[in-house]
C-alpha cells in the first residue's frame, strides 16, 4: 500500500479574491495539483454586449478594485484601435502617468501588506507594523503617493471616473500634480533604503526555467504599449496575440487558463518577466538599484519578485517625476471625438500583475457586440501549478504546516488576483493537512 497524502489549506489568505489549492500525493509522486478558483463568475464579457462603448472604461474597472486602471487602459486603447482613433501625445503621457500611480499603489500594497509578512514571520502587516513601524509607515506613505496620483488624474483611487475612450473627461491640473513633487523626492531616497533592507531577508531557494512573456518597447519600460515578447525570442504585434496564446477552461476553476501555442506550454507574466525582458529600459535610479540588489545574472526565482516590484515602483516614481515636470495642462484637447463606425480592435497593457489583453467588436450604433478579456492571473495560473508540482517533492519531509506554508508563500510571490482571474484562490490541502492513508485507487 502506497502512502497517500493530501494537503488542504482552508483558505488562501493575503491574496486578492478567493481560491483554494489541492495537492494529492501518492508516496513521493505528485498525483494532482489544482489551484481552485472559488471566486464566483461575474460574466463581464457577456454583460458588456449591447452597452455603449463609452461606458466600457467604467464597467471593466469593476473587474478588479486593485488594478482598475489596467482594465481601463487596455479597454480604451483596444476600442480606440477599433474606431481608428489617434490621440495626441499629451494624452498618452497622462495615461502613462496614471498607470504609474496604479503600479505604485498596487505594488506597495502587495509588498508591504501582503508579501513582506511572509519574510518577517508575521500573519499580517498590522502585526508586522508593531515590530517594524518604519517599514510599514513608509510603505503606506509611498502607497499614498500612488493613490494621490490616481485621485488627481482619475477623480478617485479606486475605480477612477475621469477615464474616457479618447482621453480624459477633464484635463488634470498641473498645479495639483506639481504638489506631489515633494513626496516624490522623499520617496526616491526612502524607497531604495527600504529595498536594501529587504534584500537582506531570507529568500527561499526555488528556481525554475521560466518562459517569460511581457510587452516590450525599445525605448521605455512597458506600460501602455509595446509588442508581445517572450524569452525564447518571440516578438509579435499585439494583434497576433491570440495566434500564440490560448485560453483553456479547467474543470476545477471559474477562471480560464492561458497557455502558449503550439504545444500548450506554461509561461510567466508579471514583474519578473518584465524585468528580465526589459531591464535595459529601466529609468536610471531603478536600473542602478537593480544592479546593486540583484546583480546581472538572469532571475529564475520568483521570490525575488518582492524586490523587482520595489524596483518597478522606483521606476514608476522616476517616470512620474519626469512626466509631471514636463506637463502643461493646456494646449491640447482632453479628449478626442469618437467616430461613429463599426470595427474591431485589440490591445494589451502591463497591469501590475502582468500582460492584460482585451479585444472588442463595436457595431455602427457604438455598441459592444463582442468582448474578450484575458487577465494576467489566468495566464500565470498554469505556471503556478507547474511551480507547485516542482516544489512539492522537496517538501516531503516537512510537517504539513510547513509544507502548506511553503506552497502558500509560493503562490503569494505571484501576487495573484483571483477577482481578475474570474473575471482567484483558496488553497485547500484536503483534510486540513492531516496525513491520511487510503487504499489503492480502483
Amino acid at each position: 500500500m502506497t502512502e497517500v497524502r493530501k494537503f488542504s489549506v482552508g483558505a488562501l489568505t493575503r491574496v486578492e479574491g478567493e481560491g483554494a489549492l489541492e495537492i494529492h500525493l501518492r508516496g513521493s509522486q505528485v498525483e494532482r495539483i489544482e489551484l481552485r478558483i472559488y471566486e464566483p463568475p461575474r460574466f463581464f464579457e457577456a454583460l458588456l454586449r449591447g452597452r455603449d462603448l463609452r461606458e466600457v472604461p467604467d464597467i471593466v474597472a469593476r473587474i478588479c478594485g486593485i488594478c482598475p486602471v489596467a482594465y481601463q487602459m487596455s479597454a480604451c486603447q483596444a476600442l480606440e484601435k477599433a474606431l481608428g482613433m489617434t490621440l495626441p501625445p499629451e494624452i498618452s503621457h497622462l495615461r502613462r502617468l496614471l498607470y504609474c500611480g496604479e503600479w505604485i499603489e498596487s505594488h506597495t500594497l502587495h509588498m508591504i501588506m501582503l508579501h513582506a509578512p511572509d519574510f518577517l514571520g508575521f500573519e499580517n502587516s498590522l502585526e508586522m507594523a508593531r515590530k517594524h513601524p518604519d517599514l510599514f509607515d513608509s510603505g503606506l506613505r509611498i502607497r499614498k503617493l500612488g493613490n494621490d496620483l490616481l485621485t488627481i488624474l482619475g477623480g478617485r483611487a479606486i475605480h477612477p471616473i475621469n477615464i474616457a475612450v479618447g482621453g480624459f473627461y477633464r484635463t488634470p491640473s498641473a498645479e495639483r500634480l506639481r504638489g506631489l513633487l515633494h513626496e516624490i523626492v522623499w520617496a526616491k531616497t526612502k524607497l531604495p533604503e527600504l529595498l536594501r533592507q529587504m534584500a537582506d531577508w531570507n529568500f527561499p531557494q526555488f528556481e525554475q526555467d521560466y518562459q517569460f512573456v511581457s510587452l516590450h518597447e525599445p525605448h521605455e519600460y512597458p506600460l501602455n504599449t509595446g509588442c508581445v515578447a517572450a524569452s525564447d525570442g518571440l516578438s509579435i504585434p499585439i494583434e497576433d496575440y491570440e495566434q500564440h496564446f490560448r485560453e483553456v477552461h479547467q474543470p476545477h476553476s471559474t477562471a480560464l487558463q492561458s497557455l502558449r501555442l503550439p504545444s500548450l506550454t506554461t509561461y510567466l507574466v508579471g514583474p519578473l518577466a518584465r524585468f528580465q525582458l526589459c531591464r535595459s529600459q529601466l529609468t536610471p535610479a531603478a536600473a542602478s538599484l537593480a544592479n546593486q540588489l540583484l546583480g546581472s545574472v538572469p532571475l529564475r526565482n520568483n521570490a525575488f519578485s518582492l524586490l523587482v516590484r520595489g524596483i518597478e515602483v522606483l521606476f514608476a516614481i522616476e517616470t512620474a517625476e519626469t512626466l509631471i515636470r514636463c506637463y502643461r495642462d493646456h494646449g491640447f484637447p482632453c479628449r478626442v471625438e469618437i467616430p461613429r463606425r463599426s470595427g474591431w480592435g485589440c490591445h494589451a497593457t502591463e497591469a501590475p500583475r502582468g500582460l492584460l489583453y482585451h479585444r472588442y467588436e463595436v457595431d455602427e450604433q457604438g455598441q459592444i457586440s463582442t468582448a474578450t478579456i484575458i487577465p494576467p492571473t489566468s495566464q500565470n495560473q498554469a505556471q503556478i501549478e507547474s511551480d507547485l508540482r516542482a516544489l512539492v517533492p522537496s517538501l516531503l519531509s516537512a510537517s504539513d504546516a510547513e509544507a502548506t506554508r511553503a506552497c502558500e508563500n509560493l503562490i503569494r510571490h505571484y501576487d495573484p488576483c483571483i477577482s481578475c482571474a474570474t473575471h482567484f484562490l483558496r488553497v485547500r490541502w484536503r483534510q486540513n493537512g492531516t496525513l491520511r492513508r487510503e487504499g489503492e485507487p480502483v
Partner: protein
Amino acid sequence: MSPPIPAPDVFPNKSPVPAEQSGSNRPKLGVYKFASCDGCQLALLSVENHLRQLADSVEICYFLEASSRIVPGPYDIGIVEGSVTTAHDAERIRGIRRDCRYLIAIGACATAGGIQALRNWANVEEYLSYVYAEPQYIDTLATSTAISEHVPVDFELRGCPIEPQQLLRVISDLLVDRQPRLARHSVCVECKLRQNVCVAVARGIPCLGPITQAGCGAICPSFDRECFGCFGPQENINAASWIGHCRSTDHATSRLVQLLRNVNSYDSHFREAGDGLIAKSISVEPS
C-alpha cells in the same frame, strides 16, 4: 479649473475609533467577501492614516485578504463585501449572520447586487456559454442579489467603491452602540455646494445626480461628466420627475435605461425606474 473640494473628512481632528482597548477585550471584527472586485475591502485598507488606530481598537479576527490569522467567532461586527451569486454563498451568509452581532453590507455589490446583477435581466445559461467553454464546471445562480435579500442587515453603506471615511464612521458608531447616520441628500446637492456648472442643464448630458445618494462629493460632475449612480438611489427618490426632465430634453430611452442599469441596476428604485421606462417605450413605440 477650480480646485476640487475634497470629500469631507468625518474625523477632522480626532481619532476615528475609540482609543486603544486592552488586549482580548477589543471588539472582534470579521471582513467577508462575496462576488465582488475587492475594491471595497481595499477602501478599508486605504485609510492609511487611520489603519493602525483601527487595528488597535478592534481585533481583526477574519479578513482573508489582509491576514492569515483567523480567530473563530462570534464577532461584534461583520463587514460584508460582494453579492450573493451561488447556492453555497446563499448558505454562507446565513452562517455569517449568526456569527456577527452587527452586520454591515458595504458597496454596490452587497447592497444592490453590483454590476454583475445585469445578469438578472439575461439568460444566465447563455452568459455561461458565452464566457466559458465548459459551462458545466461552473456553479452559479441565475441572479446576483444584495445581502439584505438573504439575511437582515444592520447597516448598508453605499458606493462603488464605498467612501472609506464613511465606513470608519459607521464602525465607530456601532462600537458605542450608536445608530450610524449618513447624509441622505442627493449628489446634486453636493454638486451645488462645490459650485460646479451643472452638466445636465448647461451641457444637456443626462445625469443621475438628482436621484443618487450623496457621499462621493459629486466627483463625476466635477470632472465634467454625468453621475452614473454608483452610490445608489437617494432616500425619497423621485425617479418620475427625473425621467420627466430627461424626456423633455429628448434623451433616448435606451441611454436613460443604461444609466439606471449600471453598478446599482438591481436596487429596487433604479430597477423599477428602468423597467418602467422600457415598458412605456414598448407601449408608445410598438415595434
